[in-house]
């Protein structure tokens, strides 16, 4: 049976190519009600996530190069400063070439939220929401929700303890999770559409801070699941960023809403 499937796949691949790379570039995730590791006062029973498609891998240098070639206003010597800070794509040898410090198959980094957003729009997609990211990232290779497993948490922590002056591996090196998505952990931080909705205080020891005026009607977001370091560190990272910022470890991937009734 497996062999037949394999043969079928071999035939299907060229067809997939004809249909457009987009066909296998995304996988579908069913969504549902999802308990976030963040304590949402307005979603105590969980967040509703509509079915959506997510790129299997983060966007690579090669893919982003195609984008800036066809959208020259996003090349690093032309982009308005308000959309990207001075270090945007600084790891590329020139604004339109890649090189040893930026291989085509590595996830693209040094990109701002505006640049990531523009790329996704250019391929008919959008950035994923934080909830979509969190939901997809809760899965391991065989389970939809591996978050309570201490061994899984250990794996994630050991990814983070790798020093960041090592070169980035290529995108797609990790085993796909149960939905087929790769590299959600341990490769690069990823922009989300609503990164700025992670309203945490700069000193997030103030859990339960009485200051309701701080975020207009609510105190800072706090963690419900304090042992979920993966999410804790993501939230800390994303909450420190402005839309024009870029860092050496921050990339992105795109998502698409299900065709029916798609509003942001």
């Amino acid at each position, binding site marked *: 049976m497996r062999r037949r499937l394999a043969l079928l796949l071999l035939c299907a691949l060229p067809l997939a190519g004809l249909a457009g790379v987009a066909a296998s570039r995304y996988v579908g995730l069913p969504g549902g009600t999802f308990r976030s590791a963040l304590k949402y006062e307005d979603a105590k029973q969980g967040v509703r996530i509509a079915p959506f498609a997510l790129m299997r891998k983060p966007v690579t240098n090669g893919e982003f190069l195609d984008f800036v070639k066809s959208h020259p206003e996003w090349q690093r010597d032309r982009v308005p400063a308000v959309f990207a800070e001075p270090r945007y794509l600084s790891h590329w040898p020139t604004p339109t070439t890649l090189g040893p410090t930026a291989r085509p198959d590595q996830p693209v980094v040094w990109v701002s*939220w505006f640049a990531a957003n523009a790329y996704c729009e250019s391929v008919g997609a959008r950035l994923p929401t934080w909830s979509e990211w969190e939901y997809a990232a809760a899965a391991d290779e065989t389970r939809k929700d591996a978050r309570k497993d201490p061994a899984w948490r250990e794996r994630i922590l050991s990814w983070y303890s790798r020093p960041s002056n090592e070169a980035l591996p290529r995108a797609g090196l990790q085993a796909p999770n149960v939905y087929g998505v790769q590299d959600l952990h341990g490769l690069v931080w990823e922009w989300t*559409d609503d990164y700025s909705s*992670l309203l945490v205080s700069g000193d997030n020891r103030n859990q339960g801070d009485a200051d309701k005026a701080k975020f207009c*009607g609510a105190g800072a977001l706090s963690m419900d699941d304090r042992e979920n370091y993966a999410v804790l560190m993501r939230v800390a990272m994303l909450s420190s960023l402005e839309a*024009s910022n870029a860092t050496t470890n921050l990339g992105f991937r795109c998502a698409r*809403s299900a065709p029916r009734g798609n509003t942001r």
Partner: protein
Amino acid sequence: MRAQRAKGQHTMRRWNLAVGAMVALATTILVGTLAFAAPAAAPLPRDSVYQLSVPLTDQQARTADWRTRRGKPQLMAMFYTSCQYVCPLIVDSGKAVEHQLTPAQQQRLGILLISLDPARDDSAALKAVAVKRKLDPARWTLAAPRANDVRAVAGVLGVRYRALSDGEFNHTTALILLDRDGRILARTEKVGSQPDPEFIAAVRKAVGP
């Protein structure tokens, strides 16, 4: 993810509205250009927020890109009309800033409050707030962007927000001062009737004596 246009008998009306809007827009641009000829003609600085194109629909149901505000320093903030907590203070803050200026200076500062909630803040809702708080339309504009632009506007202005399931928003509050060309000169997170003295000084410097 654009909304589908309705077909049939509404098309003609929409067409008229579109033409009307375009004429209004053209007039605004023309007036803008005539009144402040020199700055508007020069190329837009790379760090100007107007690099982002943002069509806004205001309390008088006019739609114009915020780029047309170029040529005059602006005081901007983000809010939404059904906000109970801090947003009334945002209006207070704007008024407090105005209080610190002479009438001549007030004429030289545009005040723009941008809604986080375009789905519910239509022109009528915006107008209701403007009327209730007695905001002179010659100086105060309350406007809503397109739904897809809210996150980008918040991004350039440095405002963070989260949409709640009940339609409310949690958000940071800031007053942002832009120069004639849309570059950010100053910002303050201190809202209320006691304005931040450093911010006031920056406003005074921007509008001149």
